[in-house]
C-alpha cells in the first residue's frame, strides 16, 4: 500500500480566476471557428454568431459559478479544454451541415442544432453530477449497483425491441425517437465498479502469486476477475460487433488492475489475453477481418477501404497548415462528422491544428492522471486513473484508426464527434474528475488538535 502523495503542508490554491480566463480564451477560439466556417463556406460571418456568443458566455458564467460554489478547489484546466474541444466539434459539425445543404438541398440532415442541444444537456448533467456527488467516496458504497448497471447497459442494445443495429454495430437503443449508445455510460459505471471492487480485493490479488522471470504473476485462482472482464469484452465484440468498445473495456480493466495491485504481471497477462482475443477475432469474424485487411492494404481504393482512404486523402490534402475551415472537402469522407471528425479537422486545420487537438486531449489525460496522483484515497485514485486512461485509450483507438496506426474501429472522438451519448458521458466523466480533484486539493479538515489529544485515543500501542 502506498502513502498519500501530498504532504499536508501543501495548500492548493483554488485557481477559479485562472479557469475563468482560460474558458474565455476557449470561447474566443470557438466563436472564431464559427466565423471562419461561415467565411470559408459562405463568404460571410454566420448571422447567429452574436447570439451564439451571448449564449455561450451565459452558459460559461453559469458553469463557472456552479464550479466556484460546489467544487472550488477543482482542477482549473479541464473545463476550458473540454469547452474548446466541444465548441470546435460543433463548429465542424455545422461546417459539414453547410456542405450537406449545398449538395442535397433542403432535405439535407442537419446535426449542429442537435449537437448544441446535447451539449446543453451534457452541461446540465455535468452540474447535476457535481451537485449530487458531493463526495466521490460515497460512490464506493454502490460498487455492485454500478457493476450491475454496467451489465444492463451493455445488454440493452441486444434486447429485441429497443436495441437497434446501425452501420453493422448493435450498440444502439432507440427510445422515443432518440438513439442512445448505452456503452458510453457503461464505461463510467464500469470504471466505478472496477475501482470499488479492486480497492477491496487488491490485497488478495497483489500479495499471493509466484515470481517468474522477475515478474510477479498472480495465482491461477485470482485470474477469475480478469477472465470475466475478458469474456465480457469478447461478448461485446461478438454480439454487438463493436471492436472499439470491447478493446476499451478490457484495456480499462487491465490498467486498473495493474494500478490497484502494483503488479506488472497483470499487464503481461492482460496483454496475452488481448493478443489471443484479437487474433481469434481477426481470424474468425469477417467484420474484424475486413477492418484488418483495410488497415494493412488500403490501396487501391475499394468499397471496404473507401472511408479509411478518403480520410487519409483528406488529411494529406490538409498538409501542414490546412485548407482553412469551410474550405476543404471533408464531406467526401463518410461519417466526417462523427467517426472521422478528426480527419475533418486535420484537413481544414492542417497538421498544426491536428497536433493542437491531440495536445489538448493529451492535456486532459495528464490532468486526470495528476488528479489521481494527488488524490488521498485509494478509491478516488483508482477511479481517476481509470477515467483518464479510458479517455486516453478512446482517443488512441479512434484517432489511431483514422491515421492507420491501428485497424479502424468505431469509437467516438470524445467531445467532438456528433452523438448525444458520447457528449453526455464525457461531460459526466469531467464532472467526476473535477469532484475528485476538488476533494484532493481541498485543505484537510481542521481536525488535527483532536488527534493529538492522547486521552481520546482508544487504542494505545
Amino acid at each position: 500500500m502506498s502513502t498519500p502523495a501530498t504532504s499536508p503542508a501543501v495548500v492548493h490554491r483554488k485557481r477559479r480566476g485562472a479557469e475563468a480566463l482560460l474558458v474565455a480564451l476557449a470561447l474566443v477560439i470557438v466563436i472564431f471557428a464559427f466565423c471562419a466556417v461561415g467565411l470559408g463556406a459562405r463568404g460571410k460571418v454566420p448571422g447567429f454568431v452574436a447570439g451564439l456568443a451571448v449564449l455561450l458566455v451565459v452558459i460559461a458564467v453559469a458553469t463557472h459559478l456552479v464550479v466556484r460554489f460546489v467544487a472550488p478547489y477543482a482542477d482549473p484546466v479541464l473545463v476550458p479544454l473540454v469547452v474548446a474541444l466541444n465548441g470546435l466539434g460543433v463548429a465542424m459539425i455545422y461546417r459539414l451541415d453547410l456542405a450537406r445543404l449545398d449538395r442535397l438541398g433542403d432535405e439535407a440532415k442537419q446535426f449542429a442544432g442537435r449537437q448544441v442541444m446535447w451539449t446543453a444537456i451534457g452541461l446540465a448533467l455535468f452540474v447535476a453530477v457535481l451537485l449530487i456527488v458531493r463526495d466521490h467516496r460515497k460512490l464506493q458504497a454502490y460498487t455492485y449497483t454500478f457493476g450491475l448497471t454496467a451489465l444492463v447497459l451493455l445488454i440493452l442494445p441486444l434486447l429485441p425491441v429497443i436495441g437497434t443495429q446501425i452501420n453493422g454495430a448493435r450498440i444502439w437503443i432507440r427510445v422515443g425517437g432518440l438513439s442512445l449508445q448505452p456503452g458510453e455510460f457503461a464505461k463510467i459505471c464500469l470504471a466505478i465498479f472496477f475501482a470499488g471492487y479492486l480497492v477491496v480485493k487488491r490485497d488478495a490479488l497483489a500479495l499471493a502469486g509466484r515470481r517468474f522471470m522477475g515478474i510477479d504473476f498472480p495465482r491461477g485462482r485470482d485470474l477469475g476477475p480478469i477472465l470475466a472482464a475478458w469474456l465480457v469484452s469478447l461478448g461485446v465484440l461478438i454480439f454487438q460487433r463493436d471492436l472499439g468498445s470491447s478493446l476499451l473495456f478490457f484495456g480499462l480493466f487491465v490498467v486498473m488492475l495493474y494500478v490497484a495491485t502494483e503488479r506488472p504481471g497483470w499487464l503481461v497477462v492482460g496483454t496475452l489475453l488481448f493478443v489471443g482475443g484479437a487474433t481469434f477475432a481477426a481470424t474468425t469474424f469477417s467484420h474484424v477481418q475486413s477492418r484488418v485487411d483495410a488497415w494493412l492494404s488500403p490501396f487501391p481504393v475499394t468499397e471496404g477501404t473507401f472511408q479509411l482512404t478518403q480520410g487519409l486523402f483528406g488529411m494529406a490534402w490538409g498538409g501542414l497548415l490546412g485548407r482553412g475551415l469551410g474550405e476543404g472537402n471533408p464531406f467526401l469522407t463518410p461519417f466526417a462528422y462523427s467517426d472521422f471528425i478528426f480527419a475533418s479537422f486535420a484537413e481544414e486545420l492542417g497538421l498544426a491544428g491536428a497536433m493542437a487537438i491531440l495536445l489538448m486531449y493529451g492535456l486532459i489525460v495528464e490532468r486526470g492522471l495528476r488528479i489521481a496522483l494527488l488524490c488521498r484515497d485509494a478509491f478516488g485514485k483508482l477511479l481517476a486513473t481509470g477515467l483518464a486512461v479510458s479517455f486516453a485509450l478512446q482517443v488512441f483507438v479512434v484517432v489511431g484508426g483514422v491515421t492507420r496506426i491501428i485497424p479502424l474501429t468505431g469509437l467516438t472522438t470524445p467531445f467532438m464527434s456528433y452523438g448525444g451519448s458520447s457528449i453526455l458521458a464525457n461531460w459526466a466523466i469531467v464532472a467526476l474528475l473535477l469532484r475528485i480533484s476538488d476533494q484532493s486539493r481541498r485543505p484537510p479538515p481542521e481536525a488535527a488538535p483532536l488527534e493529538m489529544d492522547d486521552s481520546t485515543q482508544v487504542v494505545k500501542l
Partner: protein
Amino acid sequence: MNRPIRVMSIVCLMLFVALLLGVNYIQFVDADTLNAKNGNRRVIDEQFARERGPILVGDRPIAESVPVDDVWKFQRRYPEGKLYSDITGYFSYTYGRSGLEQSQNSILSGSDNRLFVNRVVDLIGSNQPRGGSVSVTINRKAQRAAAEGLDGLPGDAKGAAVAIDPSTGAVLAMTGTPTYNPNVLASHDLDAVTKAWDRLNADEDQPMLNRSTQQTLPPGSTFKIVTAAAAMENLDLTPSSKVKGGSALSAPGFGSYQLVNQGGGNCGGKNITLTQALEVSCNVTFGDLSMKVGQAAMQAQADAFGFGTRPIEQVASNPSQFTGDPDAELDPPQLAQSGIGQFEVSATPLQMAMATGAIANGGALMKPYLVSTVRSPDLKTIETAKPEKIRDAISGGTAAGLSQMMVDVVDNGTGSSAAISGVEVGGKTGTAQSTSDRPPYAWFVSFAPADDPKVAVAVVVESSSTGRDDISGGRLAGPIARSVMEAVIGR
C-alpha cells in the same frame, strides 16, 4: 499506487506520441504520395476548379478552360475536338486524363515545380493559381489535310495519318478515324460523361485509340524500305545492283511454299536492279534479300529505325516489332515474308514515318516530339523543345541511294498517286493482309521535297473497298499523303 499511475502516464504519453507521429507521417511525409493516388477526388476537384492552361497550335487553343457558373468554375473546352483528340487527349472528372492533358498535366494544372514562383505570387495576391500553356508542333494545314483526307474515305474506313519534320522529329500532323470528341468526356454533366465513356469503350472500332502511335499493323510493302536499307548496309548493294526478280521465290527450306508477287505477276525479268524492284514492289526480290541479310541483321536494322521502342513519350504509344519474339528463330519462309512486312512484322504509322524521315534526313533518326514550347501563365517561356537525334539508322550513302529509289517509286512506279508537280517526292506503297476475312491495310509512306526534306508522312487505311494489290492501296492512302505534304511545303 502512485508508481503504477506514473507508469500509466508514460504509457499514455507514448500513445499520444504515436498519434502525433502518425499525423506527421500522413500530413507531411506521405502527403505527396497520397495526393497523387488514383481516385483522390480532392485533387481532381481542385484541378477541375483551377484555370487550366491552354494547349495551343500557333496562337489558337485546341484545349482551353473557360469560366462557367457551376461548382467547378471552369469548363475544359476543345474548340476542334475531333480534329485534335489524338493530341490533346481528354480531361474528365470521372475518368482522368489522356494525351497531352496527361503528360503535360503538371504545367497545365500549374503544379509544376517550375511554376513555383507563380504560385507564391498568386498566393500573396490571393489570386486563383493558373496553369501554364503548352504549344504543340502541329501544322494546322497539315492536320486539316490529314483529317479531311481520312474523312473523305468510304464510310466504314478506319485509318491514321501522321507527319513529322524529318530534320527535327517535330510532329506536324497526327490524326485518325474514327475518333471521338473529347468535349463529351470533359462535360460537367457526369451522367452523360459516363454514358459517353461506356459507349466509346463498347465501340469495337476503338475510337479512343491513338491509331498513329498505339495501333501496330503489318506494314506490308512499305517495310521493303527497311529491307532495302538492310541489304544496302549489309550486302553492299547500290540502287543499280542486280537482284533476284521473277514471279515466284522458292528456296531450301520452303518445301512446296512459294513466295509470289501481288497479283501473281512477274517483276520484269529474272535479274532486275534494286531500284526497279522497289518501283514495282517486287516480293520475290525483298523476300530473297531478307534471307540473304539474315534474321539478326534484319532485326538490327529494324531496331536501328526505332522498332522495339516506344516512339513518343508525350502521348500513349506502343513499340513496333519485327518479330513477335526476338529470341525465336524464323524459318526461311517466315524470314522471307518478314522481309516484305508480313508474318509478325507490325508497326505504328508513327514508326513508319520515322523510318521514312530517317531515309530522307541522310540517315539520322530524330526523336518525335509534340510539344514545342511550354510557357508560364504570364507567358514567360519555360522550355523550348530541342530536336534530339536518336542515332544514325543508316549511312549517308545508303540514305541518299534509298531516297532516290523512293523518288523513282513515285515518278515511275506504284507511288504515282503521291506525285506533286514541280516537287521531287519520295514514297512507297504497301498493302498488307492480316486475316482473309478482314480488309487489307493500305499503307503509304512518303517524304518531300527530296532535295531538302520538310515532311515525312505515313498513312494507313483499312477499308473494305481496298483492292488487294499495291496500286489500289496507293490509290487510297497516297492522295492523303500527298495533300498533307502539299500543306506542309505550301503547294
